[in-house]
Each structure stands twice: as structure tokens, then as C-alpha cells.
């Protein structure tokens, strides 16, 4: 079987953080041009600079403002033409005891991690905005969607919502040749994980999480490799799935 290549493809990658930047670089090294979305200009610029070719673009977009997304997607479609896929790596890894988790906070996490994902899929899956032969979509979920983690109700619920949504989106969008999958990373070495570690490194909860992930901490490239597979024709019969890349955590 031929390896994965994306020459001539154009992918939207949201989130130029640890996992997003690595994903953009990998998809780009396999031939794709990349359209980056993030709220953080520095992350956007650094990632953009690391990409090869002249057709890569970056757009500032605040995913907590779900109503503003349609405008950005329209702009992307006008300036770049139809896209071949979308990877959602934007996310906030909020750790917060229930006592402090008021509705405002819950809503913000859901907006960034979940509603913005569905909104982009909605806006991109309109005729003319995606390749008429179809496209592939991957949402970065989290293994936490399957686990009970104290202080992570908002986060895990947002990822559980994503996992449920991709099954429905996969079925609804299959007639348009659009596949929709998710990747569920375990603890991965990125700024997000380092912040969580800074707050809770001495907690028994954190030690337990690391102990359960018996193959060790994932690197961003481990997640990006799985995303590349799901974005390629090698996975052409996979849709509505959530693939765990978790160093064994779910099985322990």
C-alpha cells in the first residue's frame, strides 16, 4: 500500500498549540497547504513560519464567540476556495472544582471545546466550501470523556459531547462523502498538560492518572500521526469513530 500523501490538498487546522502545531506541520510535510485558526497570534505566527510552501494562511478567531465563526469560515472560503478537511485542535483544559464551576464557566468551556467544533463543521459542510469529492474531519477529543476525573466536569462533558456529535455528524454527512472522526489523547506533553501539572502535580489524582497511562506520556506527534491517518484514504472505511491514543490508559 502507498503511504499517506496530501499533495494539492487544503486543510483547516484550528488550534496552533502543542497538538495543533504538530498536526499542521505533519499534514504540511505530507503535501497539504494549511489554514490555521487560533486566538493566539504568537502561536499562529510561530506555526505558520514552520510550514513549507506559499499557500498556508492564518486567521485569528475566538472560539468562545461561536456566533463569530461563520464570518471567518466565509472569509476562508472566499480567499482560499474549497477545503479538503478540518482538524479541531482548539481546546481549553480547564481544571476547576464543582464548587467554582458556575454556568458562565461551563458555557465558556462548552463553547470553545464543543459548540465551535460543530459550528465549523456546519459552516464548512455547505456545498462549495468543501471539495465536491468530499472531505475528512477530525476532532481532538480527550480520553477524559470516558473517565471520572474530579475537577474536570466541564472539560470531560465537552469532550463526551464531541464524541456523541461525531457519530451523528458522520451519519448525516456520509451522503456528501464527508467522514467525521475523533482522536482521544491521553496525557500528552504540551503546554496544556504542563499547566495542569503545575497546579496538581503533588495531588494523588495526578499521580494516579500518570500511573494508569502505563506506556508513558504521549508526544504531540503520536496524536498528529493518528490524525494524518484519519485524514487520509487509508482510513476510508472509518467514520463516526473515536480513536484513543492514550498509552494504554483506557485499558488499565
Amino acid at each position, binding site marked *: 500500500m502507498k503511504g499517506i500523501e496530501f499533495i494539492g490538498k487544503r486543510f483547516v487546522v484550528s488550534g496552533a498549540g502543542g497538538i495543533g502545531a504538530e498536526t499542521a506541520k505533519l499534514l504540511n510535510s505530507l503535501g497539504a497547504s494549511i489554514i490555521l485558526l487560533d486566538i493566539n497570534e504568537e502561536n499562529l505566527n510561530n506555526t505558520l513560519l514552520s510550514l513549507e510552501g506559499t499557500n498556508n494562511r492564518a486567521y485569528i478567531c475566538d472560539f468562545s464567540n461561536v456566533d463569530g465563526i461563520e464570518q471567518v469560515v466565509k472569509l476562508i472560503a472566499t480567499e482560499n476556495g474549497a477545503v479538503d478537511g478540518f482538524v479541531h485542535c482548539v481546546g481549553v483544559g480547564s481544571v*476547576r472544582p464543582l464548587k*467554582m464551576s458556575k454556568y458562565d464557566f461551563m458555557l465558556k468551556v462548552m463553547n470553545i471545546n464543543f459548540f465551535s467544533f460543530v459550528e465549523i463543521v456546519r459552516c464548512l459542510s455547505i456545498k462549495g466550501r468543501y471539495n465536491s469529492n468530499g472531505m475528512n474531519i477530525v476532532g481532538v477529543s480527550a480520553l477524559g470523556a470516558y473517565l471520572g476525573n474530579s475537577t474536570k466536569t466541564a472539560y470531560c462533558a465537552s469532550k463526551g459531547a464531541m464524541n456523541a456529535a461525531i457519530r451523528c455528524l458522520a451519519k448525516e454527512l456520509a451522503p456528501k462523502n464527508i467522514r467525521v472522526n475523533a482522536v482521544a489523547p491521553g496525557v500528552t506533553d504540551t503546554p496544556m498538560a504542563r499547566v495542569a501539572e503545575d497546579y*496538581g502535580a*503533588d495531588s*494523588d489524582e495526578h499521580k494516579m492518572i500518570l500511573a494508569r497511562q502505563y506506556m508513558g506520556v504521549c508526544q504531540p506527534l503520536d496524536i498528529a500521526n493518528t490524525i494524518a491517518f484519519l485524514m487520509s484514504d487509508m482510513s476510508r472505511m472509518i467514520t463516526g469513530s473515536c480513536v484513543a491514543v492514550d498509552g494504554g490508559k483506557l485499558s488499565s
Partner: protein
Amino acid sequence: MTQEEKIVLLEDMLELDGGSLTPEMELASIDEYDSMAKLSLIVLMDEECGKKLTGEQIREFKTVADVLNFMGE
């Protein structure tokens, strides 16, 4: 915020009766000040005082007064 108001915020956060906390108290002697409470403290500092609190700073707190001072005016 007055010293009294700050103490009430901390007592509420720790689910302690009013009047339980005094500035001299060692944090290590307060059972309710556990890892969950430290996470709540990060949120409280952010939302009530507009201060970013890091794990390192939390580890440096020894007494209730240290926390009150960090909360600012």
C-alpha cells in the same frame, strides 16, 4: 476588599464556619485546605481578585496571612 471580607471569602471557599480563620493560622493545620481547595483558590484569586496564581506560589504559602496578602487590596 477589607481584611474581614477576604477572610469571609476564604471561609466560604473552605466551607468553614464564620470566625474559624485567623491570619496567624498555619495552612498545614487546616484540614479543609487540601489539593481541591488549592484549585478553588486559583479560581478565587482569578475571579475575585484578578490575580493569576501559579502552583509554585501556592507551594510558598505558609499561613493564612500569606494568602490574604496575595489577594491584594
